[in-house]
């Protein structure tokens, strides 16, 4: 099984990286870019047998490692 994880900064948390990208794009002439937020996209290959097992694994590893839940949110899809 495979899981796709999307980790994003929580709303309101400052994203200096996104700001810098937006700024650079503007300097390159892309005034049409109004805002950029940079997050992570993680692909996880799982050897779990059932969807439930995979669910449990993903929840745990997201909370414990993949996301820093103090400032980040995450969601995942299992397929």
């Amino acid at each position, binding site marked *: 099984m495979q899981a796709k994880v999307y980790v994003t*900064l*929580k709303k*309101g*948390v*400052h*994203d*200096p990286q996104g*700001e*810098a990208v937006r*700024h650079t794009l503007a300097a390159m002439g892309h005034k049409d870019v109004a805002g950029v937020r940079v997050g992570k996209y993680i692909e996880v290959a799982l050897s779990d047998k059932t969807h439930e097992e995979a669910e449990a694994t993903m929840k745990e590893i997201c909370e414990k490692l993949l996301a*820093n839940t*103090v*400032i980040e949110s995450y969601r995942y899809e299992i397929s």
Partner: protein
Amino acid sequence: MMADTTITPKLVEEHGITEEEYRHIESVMGRTPNITELGIFSVMWSEHCSYKSSRVYLKNFPTTGSRVLQGPGENAGIIDIGDGIAVAFKMESHNHPSFIEPYQGAATGVGGILRDIFTMGARPIANMNSLRFGDPTHPRTRYLAKGVVAGIGGYGNTMGIPTVGGEVAFDPCYNGNILVNAFTLGVMDSSRIYLGKASGVGNPVIYVGSKTGRDGIHGATMASDVFGEGGEERRPTVQVGDPFTEKLLLEACLELMATDAIVGIQDMGAAGFTCSTFEMADRAGSGMVVDLDKVPKREEGMTPYEIMLSESQERMLIVARQGREDDVRRIFEKWDLDVAVVGQVTDDGRVRVMSEGRVVADIPVAPIVHEAPLYERPVAEPSWQREAQKLDIESVEIPADMNETFLKLMESPNLACKSWVWEQYDHMVMTNTVVTPGADAAVLRLKGTDKGIAVTTDCNSRYCYLDPYAGAALAVAEAARNLSCVGATPLAITDCLNFGNPEKPEIMWQFRQAVAGISEACRQFDTPVTGGNVSLYNETKSEAIYPTPTIGMVGLLDDVNKHATPWWKDEGDVILLLGASEPDLGGSEYLYAIHKRVAGRPPQVDFDREKAVQNAVRTCIRRGLLRSAHDVSEGGIAVALAECSLTRPSGMLAATVTLTDDVRPDVLLFGECGARIIVSTTPADAQAVIEIARELGAPAREIGRVGGRMLAVNNLISVAVAELHQRWSSAMPKLMGE
């Protein structure tokens, strides 16, 4: 928080304001404050900003001296080092934020202290950090230590300012309250000091740097709150550091400071916009009107309350000369930073805050700054103090295998090699680092001169727990000794006083004792206190940390070429011990690491001997007589000898040493006391060193020779340096699970 929020007793309490303090606020205001004003008072009168519990003691510090250009009260202290050059330096804590989010907490701690330095007009050239973590086996310790170290590196490395020293210690007393103290030193032209003063009626007040967001609101009050069990939930206020923007801010500020457009400048640190407006107006005896509509904002719909209390990072407030607005604008725009004129200096002694055409806060400056509550809190020696100081040495079993005991000590968390930490810090950028981490103190050259600056941070909190007066004095003595060992003359200190809840009489007693110890030691060493920081309420579930008054000390080398390093240089060199040996086991690392005990009286400082020994080592270094110098601190003489053998950058060299003191073997090898320095010299110079030391009143004797592959002391220890190195250098990575 909306403007029409009714002020209820509950709201007052939630702002950390007592009933009595609230009555005082009403009398200052002559009316009921609105919510924005209440917020402003709450941060200005928080422990963090007002020092309400500590002020009565801090005034005992010696703060003046011929070199002091700026003492406590400004963003940083400044000392004159001659030839028109001055250095600004300070240390700050970021303990609570780092416990909540170690990477960002530590990073923004570094960001904050850097701003404190460049706001004075100095270019930062060195960072240090003093860290305390819980028991290495505690489940959160690894996570916290890794995050903090990465965060400090992440910020300092990006800024291009070397992190050249510091300390790391582990103890269970920090399980629920880690300490992250960050130090920065900058260099400046001594005639171009910038202060946080809003003078000149009509001068524009200019906001520069990052936009304001909802970060860290209540951060200042948080720093003054005891962590409850729910401490980990207060999360959304975490500030995210942006070292890239700070680097631009640094360059832009220094570029602007090279012109004469600035009247006053202050960073927005704790309590952000509030603190900078009030403090700047207060220092000039002026007033200010600011319009929040003009403040660059990151988020929609921010209320005046939020804007005034936001702790968004990387922002500064400038008061410029009238008519120079465009010069300011041009420079900040060049560096792609936000810049906005947000107000004006007035002469009515009030800060008036406007939003959407209305006055949303109107507060007299002097009372909020000077009539902040001041407490002389009850003080009482802890009931357990005397008991803890008792140590029956007969009850300490002498280990059978000294070699193995020695190896165990070398790999104990507090004595293990800390290169795991400093290799994550760029400690060489700026190409000034003459003595890199791993020595007693870092030495930085000052390009264009022969001078060098040496810096160190020190504190043994176990000593301070057992005897806060002696422990604090020892921290100062050790700092001075570390500077002397590299050849520098100690000049001044900054401090970071980390303690528990000041409302408890025992904590206040520890605080009072520690401040008294520092004050006495600073008088003795002639190293005035030029600034510092107090961090109280470091406790969780009413378990306080050990009192931890960290000392950051700065010293000067007139000729940076004449410095010393701790490691042996050559086979056959003579090893001398400066200072007498009166080691003891009270509070020692050996007692803790091997016997799992924290007991006894820590060494008491013998100021005369300390000064004599330090003077001797400096004199010999200056005369070019020493090959190496290293002080004996935690772990005693055996550990110090090991460090001299192991820190050598190009291949290890061992030594054979004979100690003749008539004490039991573990005390001889691992006992601790002040005023001891191990030096090595060529055989030809040994006698000259001994004579100089004696002339200066410092005991000195030959104890051995450099050489070989085995470190041997009497017939007690004989260990291959390779094995020693293996155990010592792999311990930290192991602790971190690598």
